[in-house]
Each structure stands twice: as structure tokens, then as C-alpha cells.
């Protein structure tokens, strides 16, 4: 029992500890996930920022071939000389020059649009900006990025025009002693293609937004790009973010449990227009201990060492079953077998040494119980020999008591025959204080416990044996010979002994009272049935000592 109980406790403890650990693990996982996500988003935002800056620098270098192209400088200067109107030949020549240079730029570093701007800010020629087709007065000179280039600076900007553009510009010099002849401006449209390229190179899920709308988005393969649309609903609240407002980068914001995002303003005019980009990551939290199952991918499951878990479970179950068999099933089976033998009478009593643990105690208790019951006379019996019958109809013939005392019974002092009990003094009828117990076939007779206060058992003092079924005529000696009072002394002694055996108190129980009661009953029976005399016997009823009266007419 100890092993299996210990095992149950151990399993219970393990289960509790496992549940606690799982909750702990999920909490730690979520906390670590939040921290990692925040750090990851910040890293993503920083990487995107670096990428945009580096990309702008690289592309500004790609403007050098334009600036060094002789025709570009020459025809920009020619345009400057005509403040009234851009010379048409300058437009044509510049367009050709732009095309020539543009064809030599690697595609990965190329521009969507290129503009050649003269000192007046007028766009003399351009590539890739069809929106301006036919607009002779199209100009860009007011934008700070172009103005800076016209004043000798190379820089970048982010413009929000009809679309969002990343722009770089640098001066074009014709005469080094004079102002730059103009500026060359390269622009890239911030569209899905741009975002895709950025996402591929940085590994970030990124969305650009302007004017409260998503302008472009792209994400790695394991990220649902459509989730980035959720930022549109969040942009209205974004201005309330203090960090975003002051530093240009928001804190980590979770949108609808779908994604966590961090917003960053784009440098340039876009900054003041509230345009920027958002990097996003999907939340990595688990809803509870079972959430790990849904979050684990194949790689995680491979790391899970399922065979070890199965083996551990099988070993634990096997140990539990083994302990259960050893401590429950097997002892119970032994006990069952022994009990069956006991019931069949093939054994006299259960042998405690055959059992283990609590079954040993049960066997001892059963044996003790049987002994006690036998000492009480085998317990209550049903049948005609009941004291109730004393008050019932008088039979025509003398009725034999269920526990009459045959006078010819011989006690076997050696114990090989019927067991003699009590040390009651022999009566005039040959020792009525002894009873004979039935013995199971093939088994040795058991000695009944002696009543307290009884003397030692001797063959002479135990002449009678107890017989449950008295032969007819066994009472022939009753009512003849000695007077009632002589018998009643024996009956009294037997009655007292039986009461003691049944555990009843005999305090205050005197012979005088006993005799008085017998007399009263005798007289009543004699009067009622016309009996000559009444013979009393002792028996046990419902675990208590009781008297039975037999009226005798002759």
C-alpha cells in the first residue's frame, strides 16, 4: 500500500508541478515574447531607417554620372540664360543625355524618375514622370531638397506629392566659379515594389502610410501582408503617441491582437505631413498551457522529444500498475481464495500469516469475531425455541427446549469430543451448565471462552454438553425428583454465565430476584395451562441471555 500510495502522491505532485510549470512557462514565454517583440520591432524600425538612409546615399552617388554628363550641364546652363522660356533644344538634348546616363545605371540602383532642374527651378527635362507631360512650366525649385541642390548640397528627402517619393538631389556644375547650373533629382516611388525590395533586404514586415492611408506594404513569407492594413485604423490615434509626436518613433502598439507595430516618421517633408512607415510583427503569445500546441511548428515538435515523453508515461503507468498489482490485486486475490476456503469449511480459520498489510489485520479480526460469536452461542437463532413461546399457546405435548440439557452428556476432558464449557456445579440432573457446540467436519473443536469468574474446567465439573437439538424425551427428568428451587440454582448460574459471555452486566442481579421471577412465571404457566411443573432453560437471543420455559403437565 505504501508504494502505490506514494506513487499516487508522487503522480499528483508531478501533475500539480507540471501544471504550475506550464502556467509559469506560458507566462514567461509571453513576457519574453513581449520583450523580444518590442526589441525586434525597434530593431526592425532601426534597420529600415538605416536601409532608407543607405539606399538614399547609394542612389545619390548614382546621380554623379548625370551631373558629370557634359550635355546635362551644358543645356542646363543654356536654359538659365533664357529666363523667359526654356529653350526647346535644351529640353531635347537634356532628355537624350538623361536617357544615355540612365541606361548605364544598374537596374537595382536606378530611379523611377529623373529630373534636370535649372537655376530657376524649372524642370528642363525629365524621365519617368508622365504626369507632367505637356506641362511646360513644370518646376520643382521650391522644394528644399531641390533648393539645397541648387545651392551646392547633396541630400535626400521624402516628398508626398501625387504619391510618396524618396528623392535625392545634387548640383550640376558648369562653371566652378559660378552657381551650379542646376540640379539633378532622382526619385523612387514608394510603392509595393519598393516595400517588397526593402522587406526582402531587411526581413521586416513594413508598411508605408501617408495622408491617413496605407501607401505600400510588404512582408516576409511567414507574415500575412493583409494584416498590415490594420494600421489604417490606428493612424488616427497615432498622433496622441507622445514619442511619435516628439521623437518620430512610437512605442510598440498592438492592433486588435493581430499585429504589434511600431511607427516611424519618414525624414523630409513627409515628416511634417505625418507620413512614415510601420514595422510589424505578429504576437507570439500563448493563451495558456495548451496554447503551446497550437503555436508549436514542426521544428518545435521535433525538439519536443516525443519518444522520451511516451517512454516516461509508459514507465510511470507501468510502475503504477505494478504497485497496484503488488499491493492491491495480489493480496486481495489471496484473501479471496482464503475466504473462499473458509466459507467452504476447508479451513477452520483464516491464517493471518498468509496475508500482508491490512488483510492480515482483517483476517485476525474475522477470526476474533467468529470466536466471539461462537462464545455467544452462535448468535441469535430463529425457531420455535423462543421465550416468546412462553407466553404463546400451550402445546399438547411438552415442548422441548432449544437448549435443553441432557443429563447423559459426557464431556470430553481431553478435548477430542464435544467441548464442555463452564464450571457450573453439576445439578441434580447431571450437569446442566454445559453445552455442546457443533463442530465443522474435519476440524478440531474450538473451546468457548469461559465466563468471567468461572472456575477451572475439570472433567467432573463439566458433565453436560450443549446440544442445539434436544432429542424428544430428553426432558423426561425435568419436573420429577428435586424441587424447582434446586434446578433454579443451576439455571441461575447458567444464566449468569451466559449473560457474562454475552457481555451483559450482572450487577444487581441477585438469585432472589431471579427466583422470584421464575416463581411468578411458573405459577402463571401452571395456572394457565394446568401444568404440573415448569422447567426453565437458558439460551441466547439477539445476543442476550434469555430464559425458556417448558410447562410439563404430567
Amino acid at each position, binding site marked *: 500500500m505504501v508504494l502505490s500510495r506514494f506513487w499516487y502522491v508522487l503522480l499528483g505532485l508531478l501533475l500539480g508541478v507540471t501544471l504550475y510549470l506550464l502556467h509559469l512557462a506560458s507566462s514567461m514565454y509571453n513576457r519574453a515574447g513581449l520583450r523580444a517583440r518590442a526589441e525586434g520591432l525597434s530593431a526592425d524600425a532601426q534597420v529600415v531607417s538605416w536601409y532608407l538612409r543607405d539606399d538614399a546615399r547609394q542612389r545619390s552617388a548614382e546621380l554623379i554620372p548625370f551631373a558629370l554628363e557634359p550635355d546635362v550641364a551644358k543645356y542646363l546652363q543654356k536654359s538659365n540664360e533664357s529666363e523667359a522660356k526654356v529653350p526647346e533644344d535644351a529640353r531635347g538634348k537634356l532628355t537624350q543625355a538623361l536617357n544615355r546616363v540612365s541606361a548605364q545605371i544598374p537596374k537595382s540602383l536606378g530611379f523611377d524618375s529623373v529630373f534636370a532642374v535649372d537655376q530657376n527651378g524649372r524642370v528642363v527635362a525629365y524621365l519617368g514622370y508622365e504626369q507632367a507631360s505637356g506641362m511646360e512650366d513644370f518646376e520643382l525649385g521650391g522644394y*528644399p531638397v531641390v533648393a539645397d541642390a541648387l545651392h551646392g548640397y547633396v541630400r535626400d528627402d521624402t516628398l508626398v506629392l501625387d504619391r510618396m517619393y524618396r528623392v535625392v538631389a545634387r548640383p550640376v556644375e558648369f562653371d566652378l566659379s559660378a552657381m551650379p547650373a542646376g540640379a539633378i533629382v532622382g526619385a523612387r516611388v514608394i510603392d509595393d515594389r519598393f516595400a517588397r525590395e526593402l522587406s526582402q533586404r531587411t526581413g521586416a514586415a513594413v508598411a508605408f502610410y501617408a495622408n491617413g492611408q496605407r501607401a505600400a506594404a510588404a512582408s516576409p513569407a511567414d507574415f500575412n501582408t493583409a494584416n498590415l492594413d490594420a494600421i489604417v485604423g490606428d493612424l488616427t490615434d497615432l498622433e496622441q503617441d507622445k514619442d511619435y509626436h516628439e521623437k518620430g518613433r512610437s512605442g510598440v502598439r498592438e492592433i486588435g491582437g493581430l499585429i504589434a507595430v511600431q511607427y516611424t516618421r519618414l525624414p*523630409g517633408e513627409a515628416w511634417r505631413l505625418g507620413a512614415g512607415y510601420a514595422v510589424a510583427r505578429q504576437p507570439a503569445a500563448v493563451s495558456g498551457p495548451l496554447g503551446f500546441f497550437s503555436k508549436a511548428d514542426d521544428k518545435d515538435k521535433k525538439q519536443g522529444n516525443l519518444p522520451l515523453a511516451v517512454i516516461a508515461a509508459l514507465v510511470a503507468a507501468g510502475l503504477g500498475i505494478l504497485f497496484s498489482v503488488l499491493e492491491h490485486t495480489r493480496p486481495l486475490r489471496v484473501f479471496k481464495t482464503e475466504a473462499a476456503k473458509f466459507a467452504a469449511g476447508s479451513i477452520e480459520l483464516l491464517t493471518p500469516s498468509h496475508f500482508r498489510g491490512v488483510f492480515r489485520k482483517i483476517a485476525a479480526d474475522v477470526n476474533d469475531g467468529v470466536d466471539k460469536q461462537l462464545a455467544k452461542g452462535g448468535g441469535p437463532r430463529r425457531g420455535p425455541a423462543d421465550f416468546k413461546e412462553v407466553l404463546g399457546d400451550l402445546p399438547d405435548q411438552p415442548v422441548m427446549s432449544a437448549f435443553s440439557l441432557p443429563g447423559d452428556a459426557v464431556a470430553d476432558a481431553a478435548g477430542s469430543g464435544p467441548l464442555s464449557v463452564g464450571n457450573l456445579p453439576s445439578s441434580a440432573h447431571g450437569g446442566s451448565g454445559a453445552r455442546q457446540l457443533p463442530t465443522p467436519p474435519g476440524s478440531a473443536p474450538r473451546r468457548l471462552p469461559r465466563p468471567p469468574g468461572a472456575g477451572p474446567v475439570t472433567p467432573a465439573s463439566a458433565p453436560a454438553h450443549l446440544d442445539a437439538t434436544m432429542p424428544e424425551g430428553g426432558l423426561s427428568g425435568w419436573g420429577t425428583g428435586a424441587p424447582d428451587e434446586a434446578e433454579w440454582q443451576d439455571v441461575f448460574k447458567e444464566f449468569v454465565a451466559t449473560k457474562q459471555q454475552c457481555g451483559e452486566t450482572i450487577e444487581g442481579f441477585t438469585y432472589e430476584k431471579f427466583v422470584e421471577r421464575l416463581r411468578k412465571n411458573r405459577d402463571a404457566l401452571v395456572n394457565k395451562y394446568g401444568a404440573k411443573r415448569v422447567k426453565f432453560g437458558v439460551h441466547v437471543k439477539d445476543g442476550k441471555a434469555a430464559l425458556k420455559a417448558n410447562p410439563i403437565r404430567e
Partner: protein
Amino acid sequence: MKASWAALLIALVPASAEAAKLRGRVDGFRNLLNPVWAEAKDPKEHGYSFREPVPTVRAEFRRLFPHAPKEICIAALAAGPQKSPPPVLVRIGGGRTTPVTLVVPPGTRLTFQNTDPFKHRLHGVGFPTFQPADTVRGATREWSVPGPGVFEIRDELAPSLRMWVVGDPTVAAIAYPSMKGDFALSVEQPGEYTVQAFFAGKKVGPAMPVTVKEADLDLTKTPLKVGDEKAAAAAEKADAEKAKADAETDAKGGDK
């Protein structure tokens, strides 16, 4: 562009065969600083991720002086109030308006025309008569100068676009200098005038009193000095030191 700009001047200045020409010249305008561009170069404005000078461009050209033909307005101010001229065309395009600074009598109607291939949303700053409204490509929008004073107009969709309209009832004529600083005012009526340069909504340089008779006047010998080189150099030096200090602060603070 020049043709339409000339049309503006023609519209602003009443044509008259008897109009006298005041030919003059502004000097030192390269010592002025375009407020929009100057603001944009401040790193704290986050206008760029990198901005570096090209070494081959001489330092004097790196100063962000205004584009005089659009930003410096030369006005001839009469002794008394003048009639409002016909509507004045203001083009919106290229990140600015043309002109950037305009000096007109109150009540003058301005017609804003969008010459960009995308929309603009102009609005007045600090006065209610010019509320934000979209002006799509090629469309126009009108507004009358409500009274004397300086009225700043901006574009909600293009932060770099800023325009100043100066309402002055004594404006008799205006002109815009060339890249070299030359200008010509056409004054219809003889009389006493004051020639004054305006830049970014403010008067710059000294006022030059002139007496106009029937003959043209040549004022080029006494150019209007609108910008002081020493002051500009001092401002530039202070600006450079401030930029240097900011850069050091940024370097200590790390890249955010």
C-alpha cells in the same frame, strides 16, 4: 513661365503709354535667407537623413539665398491710396507659389492656379477669410486681400509652400528682379514715390524715395541694398556653430 509671369506684371501694373519706367537694381539679396529652406536645413526639423555640401561648389553659393525673381518684390509706394489693380494670377507649383511675396492694395483679387499635376490645399494663417480647400490640377481659386497688413498663406499638403501677401493701400506698382537683381517699375502717374523691397512679407533694405516725372528714371547707380553681407556672414557663422553643437549633441546622444 516667363510669359505668364510677364502677364502677371502686366495685369498688376496698369498699362499706359505715359507710364514711366523706374529701372533699378537690388543688391545683396544673396545675403538674405529663404526662411523655408533655412528652416528645412535644421536637423531638428528632420527634413533629411543626410545633407552634405558638394566641395566643388563655392561657399558663397551654398548660402540659401532666395530666388529673387519670385521672392523679392519691389514696390513703388505712392503718397496716397491707390486703386486696386485687376486680378493677379498666382501660380502654385514646384513647391512654392509664384510670386512668393506679393505687395498689393487691399481688395486686390488674387487668382491661385494649380500648375502641379497633383492637388494643393491652400489656407490663410491666422485669418479666417481663406480656409483650407483643395485645388486640383489646373484648377483656380480666388481670394481678395481683406485689408492692410501681412497675410501668410500655406499649403496643408506641401509644408514648404509659404506665401506672403502684403496689403498696402499705397502700392502703385510692383516688380520682381532678375537673377542679377535688375528690375523695372512702371509708374503711371508722376509724383513722389518710395521704392521699397519686400521679402517674405517684410520690408528689406532701405526705402528709396523717388520723384517720377514723365521721363524714365535710372536708379541702378544707387541699388537697393536688401541684405547686409556682414550680418549674413555673422548669421552664417552662428548658424554653423549651432549646427556643429547640434551635431556633437547628436553624436553623444547616439543614433536614435
